């Protein structure tokens, strides 16, 4: 039996599949968020050096990891869309962008909240912070370019090219910023090499998986909205029961 690998690369078939998949990602995400928060707040011990304030890492670290990871996934989808001219890939890229930007923003915000009691400053020009800020700028540029082009096909292809140029530039920016920081003053803050308590590791890992599942669920539901918007004048949508009313 031949499998049609491209069946779900059409928005009309993927719309239904995404609808079926969303609960499978959303519910585990909700449950894991609950478990992760419980372990993080009640089971994990108080840190010897940072006391209670360290607990923000349970949200800070997962969103920081994912904010970078989502950019790569987004650029990957954008490249697929540009090369194979698949409409769905471009829609996925634009569905991922707001989540990535949100995670980058939360990462900066929680970082500031943590930095105030720990470093005594809301913001330091550390290489890590600076590159996260630039990543947020890159996301905003992608979203702004997409928003300002009215023709969706041009918007998809233009922002795809931008995402690819951005992803080539990300490592260059990252190492430049790191170098810049060490040239200026030498990083004054380093994460201590102390090993983490088991409960801390568990909570962080669970929260990472939860954020991951959340990102997938929200991207799928966003891509469904994008499909509805873009395909609003097609026949299959008019025949679809759930939107006919």
């Amino acid at each position, binding site marked *: 039996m031949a499998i049609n690998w491209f069946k779900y690369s059409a928005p009309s078939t993927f719309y239904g599949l995404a609808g079926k998949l969303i609960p499978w990602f959303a519910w585990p995400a909700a449950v894991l968020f609950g478990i992760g928060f419980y372990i993080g707040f009640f089971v994990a011990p108080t840190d010897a050096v940072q006391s209670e304030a360290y607990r923000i890492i349970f949200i800070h670290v997962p969103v920081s990891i994912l904010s970078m990871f989502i950019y790569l996934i987004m650029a990957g989808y954008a490249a697929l869309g540009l090369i194979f001219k698949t409409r769905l890939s471009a829609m996925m890229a634009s569905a991922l962008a707001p989540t990535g930007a949100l995670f980058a923003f939360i990462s900066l915000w929680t970082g500031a909240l943590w930095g105030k009691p720990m470093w005594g400053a809301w913001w330091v020009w550390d290489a890590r912070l600076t590159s996260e800020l*630039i990543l947020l*700028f*890159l996301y*905003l*540029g992608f979203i*702004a*370019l997409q928003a*300002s*082009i009215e023709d969706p096909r*041009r918007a998809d*292809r*233009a922002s795809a*090219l*931008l995402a690819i*140029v*951005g992803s*080539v*530039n990300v490592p*260059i*920016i990252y190492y*430049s*910023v790191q*170098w*810049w920081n060490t*040239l200026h003053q030498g990083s004054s803050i380093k994460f201590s090499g102390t090993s983490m308590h088991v409960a801390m590791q568990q909570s962080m890992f669970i929260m990472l998986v939860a954020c991951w599942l959340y990102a997938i669920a929200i991207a799928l539901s966003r891509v469904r909205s994008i499909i509805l918007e873009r395909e609003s004048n097609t026949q299959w949508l008019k025949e679809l029961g759930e939107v006919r009313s």
Partner: protein
Amino acid sequence: MNRLSLIDLLLLVIRRDLLLAMRRRADVLTTLIFFVMVVSLFPLGVGPEADMLRKMAGGVLWVAALLASMLSLPRMFSADHLDGTLEQIMLAPQSLTVMVLGKIVAHWMLSGLPLVLIAPVLGLQFDMSPAAIWTLMLALLLGTPVLSMIGAVGAALTLGLRGGGVLVSLLVLPLTIPVLIFGAGAVEAVNSGIDAVSNLALLGAFLLFALVFTPFVAAQALRISME
């Protein structure tokens, strides 16, 4: 023989763009005046102490150069787009990449090169040492073409859009951060007595890297914008 070699084509595009710009000299001058003005605003904002100005000079001049080059970016393709020349250029059998490279070179000669040449005067205003001024000029000479090249991609992507001018800055500025870091870093190195050659070498590396890829990417972006 009416087949153009690539070099002829490149020179032709550059000569044409320079000629057009010379017919409207005000555009070139505005960028330059903007650069001088932004740089002159800094001492007014932070105070006239020579020590502090000397320390800031590299960064201030670089940021001003970045902003000035953003200012002139929307013009790179828009005039040709409006009067239909760009469509004819794209229909021509010659390589679009080479033509884009020609436009980038012309753009740099009109917006980047004047900044390099005026920079020493502004450096003197900031009480920079002669060694620092030379390094600044060399860094600008290597770095401003990169700004024009990355900018060309942004200008091509935003061609004909409402509010394209602000948008292009939003897209391009984050991508130019490495140039800013090492350009200002070269001047900083001279000020603190270190050899600036590593910073300049990296700027040169960016220049070569951008020279290889950006004309092609900008040509693709033009195709996306024009279809």
